[in-house]
């Protein structure tokens, strides 16, 4: 009995969604006609459905769009608006060009040299080794110079260790005071 009622209700629900076949619809109508209780349930469901279907949309208050746009104008720029694709693409191409052109040129020269003279690869490796040695000795010299200056003048260490964080902190404060990148771009526009 309870299962029949459950099945009736499910079918009524499907009927409201217009998802019953003609045959199923006819069976449902026969069941509705056979029982006052089912007929009453069907009436209430249909009334509910009709009420919901015929209730119009609520209109937005007057000036709603203007208020939303005014709020958007005061919002920090979203991530996508901060990006400048044309500048980004130009910089990307420049960096790619700066790195790839010399690399490809050197690679091409090596290939050509190897093809024409197999001994050239040894010469190139030797030159590379010398260059690396020169860079390492240069860095060692610089570190040595800094070390001797630092031990000669202890104030220098104190200055470096305090001035750098203080400068960074002031830079960060000033950056926020002008409103970051957005503030700078506004100032440059005005």
């Amino acid at each position, binding site marked *: 009995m309870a299962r029949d009622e459950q099945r009736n209700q499910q079918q009524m629900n499907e009927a409201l969604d217009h998802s019953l076949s003609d045959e199923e619809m006819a069976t449902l109508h026969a069941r509705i006609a056979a029982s006052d209780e089912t007929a009453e349930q069907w009436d209430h469901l249909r009334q509910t459905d009709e009420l919901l279907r015929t209730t119009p949309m609520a209109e*937005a208050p*007057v000036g709603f769009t203007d208020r939303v746009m005014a709020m958007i104008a005061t919002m920090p720029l*979203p991530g996508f608006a901060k990006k400048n694709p044309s500048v980004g693409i130009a910089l990307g191409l420049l960096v790619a060009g700066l790195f790839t052109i010399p690399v490809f040129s050197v690679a091409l020269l090596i290939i050509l040299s190897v093809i024409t003279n197999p001994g050239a690869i040894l010469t190139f490796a030797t030159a590379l080794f010398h260059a690396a040695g020169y860079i390492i000795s240069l860095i060692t010299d610089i570190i040595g110079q800094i070390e001797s200056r630092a031990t000669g003048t202890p104030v220098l260490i104190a200055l470096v260790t305090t001035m750098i964080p203080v400068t960074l902190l002031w830079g960060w404060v000033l950056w926020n005071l002008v409103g970051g990148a957005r503030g700078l771009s506004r100032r440059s526009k005005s």
Partner: protein
Amino acid sequence: MSQENDVLWVQQTLAGDPQAFGELVQRYERDVFNLTYRMLNNRGEAEDAAQEAFLRAYSNLDRYDQNRSFKTWLLSIASNHCIDRIRRRRLTWLSLEEPLPPHPALTSDIPGPEEATLSNEKSMLVQELLDELPADYRMAVVLRYWYDYSYAEIADMLDTTESAIKSRLFRARQALAKELEAKPVSSLNPAMEGS
């Protein structure tokens, strides 16, 4: 054509023209407001929620998949925001520290000219009935009846299964029919009576 225009306005906004977003707000203000109003049953709160939905959509516009409907995306943002608000509202009610919020019927909703339609008996009756439903049932009813979305679309918007939506709508209809049964006959539209 409508979807093409939407995508065009989205692209213009993404390219740095916020005024293009204004076109989208204008086009969908009624859809979004109707959803928040039907869910929250308070015009003031509904306006706040609708504004918030548009602001969230603007902030996350780069996440919008331009192959899908902008309206559906926007309404799913509004739906989730309404459900969050209802949850928060419930938490406030449960908190002994907070004073109880006034009943929606008692809040200062000064009727404006555009509210003439809303204040009619039928619309009020619908709001009364919807207010009795749990939030997830109410959302299924609103998306089905006012936006004509299919079960699959509603399931997608609310991040659940089609069968869950079917079940929610079935139970919601049963509950609404019971509620309606208890209402006086005069509260029904005469055109509907005896249909």
